């Protein structure tokens, strides 16, 4: 006997929801998934009517589903938003060039304007050239720091009011775990916020914050959405990998774990006397930074000086020197040159 959809109780169930275990038919699943994103958007008051919203689009499943759902909801509930796709080209041959093709197809399918900013035009470096100099060990640090800023710069060029990204519940839970493991109390406090950075930077939000990765895949699969699903060719972040596989194991034991971790993260309260980094602006590029020079500028300085390890690890003692473009001592230079792996 076929299992009936637990929602409409008429149609045959097509799938079992990873989040709650309910059996649903395709149509009900779509509806439920979209309604939940709608609820996240409305309850957290993510957008206001008339705003221009940049959707961070990588061509992967999360951002493809995000773009699709945003478009659907914008029409269904008449948010009155002006949606734009915003992509970053890191310059990774065999990976990003392919995924950007997907984004371009999405642009046509969803009839949304698209803006691509590249590392090359912003920083004068592509990830390919960076990896050539840095090697495969710390390259993700560069990519991550640069991408964050690139998205903001692209958004500024387009004069968008807000950026939304495809971070899903798994990503948020994983970040909670990782920040906890690393003892990064400042990030631990920030990472569960559904929207961030109202002062100075362009506000960002995560409408898929409570959507399970598995459900996003299911949604994309049943909607037959066109997305790119290859891992980056440069090795993924090892430490995050630990948190990721741990979370996957947790989910297999108790499916609600992902939401449970987020619930924990949302309810952590940090002692008032714990010192938090003060947010200022980078003296060189003006981007938000807790130091005089922002991380991206330090990393870039390191690349340009041929000292790629400069930005990896701690560097606050050298900030003044870097800011005044003074040369480093020989000893310092030796430390930040590449050591062979």
């Amino acid at each position, binding site marked *: 006997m076929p299992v009936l959809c637990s929602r409409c109780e008429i149609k045959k169930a097509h799938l079992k929801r990873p989040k709650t275990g309910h059996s649903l038919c395709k149509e009900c699943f779509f509806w439920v998934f979209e309604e939940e994103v709608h609820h996240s958007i409305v*309850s957290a008051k993510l957008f206001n009517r008339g705003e221009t919203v940049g959707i961070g689009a990588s061509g992967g499943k999360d951002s493809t589903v995000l773009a699709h759902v945003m478009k659907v909801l914008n029409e269904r509930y008449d948010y009155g938003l002006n949606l734009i796709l915003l992509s970053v080209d890191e310059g990774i041959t065999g990976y990003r060039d392919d995924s950007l093709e997907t984004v371009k197809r999405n642009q046509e399918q969803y009839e949304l304007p698209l803006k691509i900013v590249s590392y090359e035009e912003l920083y004068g470096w592509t990830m390919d050239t960076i990896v050539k100099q840095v090697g495969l060990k710390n390259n993700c640090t560069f990519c991550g720091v640069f991408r964050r800023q690139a998205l903001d710069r692209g958004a500024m060029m387009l004069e968008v009011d807000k950026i939304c990204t495809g971070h899903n519940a798994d990503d948020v839970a994983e970040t909670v775990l990782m920040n906890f493991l690393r*003892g990064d109390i400042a990030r631990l406090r920030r990472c569960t916020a559904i929207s961030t950075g109202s002062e100075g930077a362009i506000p960002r939000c995560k409408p898929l914050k409570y959507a399970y990765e598995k459900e996003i895949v299911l949604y994309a699969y049943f909607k037959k959405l066109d997305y790119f699903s290859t891992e980056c060719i440069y090795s993924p972040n090892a430490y995050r990998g630990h948190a990721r596989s741990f979370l996957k194991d947790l989910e297999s*034991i108790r499916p*609600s774990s992902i939401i*449970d971790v987020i*619930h*924990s993260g949302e309810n952590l*309260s940090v*002692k008032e006397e714990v010192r938090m980094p003060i947010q200022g602006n980078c003296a060189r590029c003006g981007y938000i930074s807790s130091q005089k020079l922002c991380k991206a500028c330090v990393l870039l300085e390191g690349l340009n000086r041929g000292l790629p390890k400069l930005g990896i690890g701690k560097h606050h003692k050298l900030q003044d020197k870097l800011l005044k473009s003074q040369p480093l001592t020989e000893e310092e230079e030796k430390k930040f040159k590449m050591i062979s792996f």
Partner: protein
Amino acid sequence: MCDLDEGSNEDSMGRDSVKRISSKCMKCKESPALLIIRVGDAFCRNCFKEYFVHKFRAMLGKNRLVFPGEKVLLAVSGGPSSSSLLFQVQEGLSHKASKKLRFVPGIVHIEEGAACGKTLEERTKIVADLKSIFSTSGFPFVIVYLEEVFSLPSSVLQSIFSLPTEKDDLYKDAVAGFMQSCHTSVKKNLCHETVAQETTLTEDHTHASLLSTHAHANETSISAFRGKFPFSPEQTEAVKKLFASMKTLTAKEEMLQTLRKHLILYTARIKGYSKVMMGDSCTRLAVKLLANICLGRGAFLAMDTGFSDPRHGDITIIRPMREYSAKEIAFYNKLFGVPSVFTAGLNTKAPEKASIQHLTESFIVKLQADFPSTVSTIYRTSEKLNPRYSQTPADDKGTETCLLCSCVLGIELRDEASAFCAISISEELSQSKKPEGGQVSSSTMEECCAENKMETLESSGCSCQSRERRNTTPDFWSLLCYSCKLVVKDMTSLDLLPEYILEEANRRQRRTQIKREIQEYLLTSEDDADTAP
């Protein structure tokens, strides 16, 4: 160790420690080194002992929570950590100690064989081993069996909440008072005499009937035990049934911990102890911290793992072993012959993914092997968390606490834009609108959803309003915190819970009902004070 360029001098560090192993103790620089606790820290036997003992006293001294002459109950499971705790207290109270500890200890052991499927013979043997360890300590001790949860009164769950007051002043007064009483009394044996007196006094306490049968066990020698258990075979069956009714090991472990806590609290209360010492090590706490995050207990992390846990009001739980790593304890126990007893627990020999707690433990242990600072980093993160006493009102009238874990319910985020709400929306949307959903098993879930639905529809982001609403459908779920709800969700039947829990649940539900009836005559809403986030 944590200087600027951690990355680049890894290999020089390695060389350093190799060099130091062969050399002298880093502290006295005389005796040959015997063990390495952390990279580069080689200790000789004596210096290690001194370091270990100092850490224990420093922990108690720094926090100044244990008053001189106060009765402190040591919760000893028989494992390495709590056995080490017992040993530290023994040493600290012995005449050899240069500065004697001034509190009055007693021991409690919760015997959980029934939940772990052990036979009576196995259990008797373990208890006999423990008793021989306990009696050499000379402290009064109690063995409490898990079965006894079926004869607990519901008053266990009614905590008298008191705000932490000016500790320093209290402590000073207590010390002054203690010194005076020491001077007026005859000689130094005083401490032990008062123990004896106090124990016999509290033995006659009104509640004492339950535990008194074996409370004197240490006086009447071990042989008196001989197969006489303070519980019936039916109660053993009831324990087994309760644990069999739980679908996941994760929930079983949580339940066992809850029941154990209740038994310890009860024992402390009827025997007049005001502090309970637990033996959680730094390693154990790191595991507990991460596991609790995964179990949705984020709001209570600081209380669940901090040095002191005041949530039970009259009885404070403290964790003086929290700065020792499991490795340090193992070394100490081995070097100084601290006896411990191995008891197989619920998850012994279970596969890695058997439960969230078990998975977390193996995850941390593995990560610690690759990144040696994992445990201490997690531990230090926990130090920065706020226990949030401030949000609990001074008068206990309006404070709703979780039926099972006694944490304050009002401090969990429950507004519309929260994970708490997101998951209930998901549950609600995935089901048909008709209230009679079909299967029996999901009926409880629906009740929960109905409650949440009302909450989300009615509330406008204001949690105190939604709390009022929630009370209009008083049910079991509303008495639990987020995490304990997950535990109960994994149970097939609520009826198997011990009577005292069900009774207390009824009492609380009745109270909310009454309160609702008289609501319009109350001038100030009790809930106003404690629900503001």
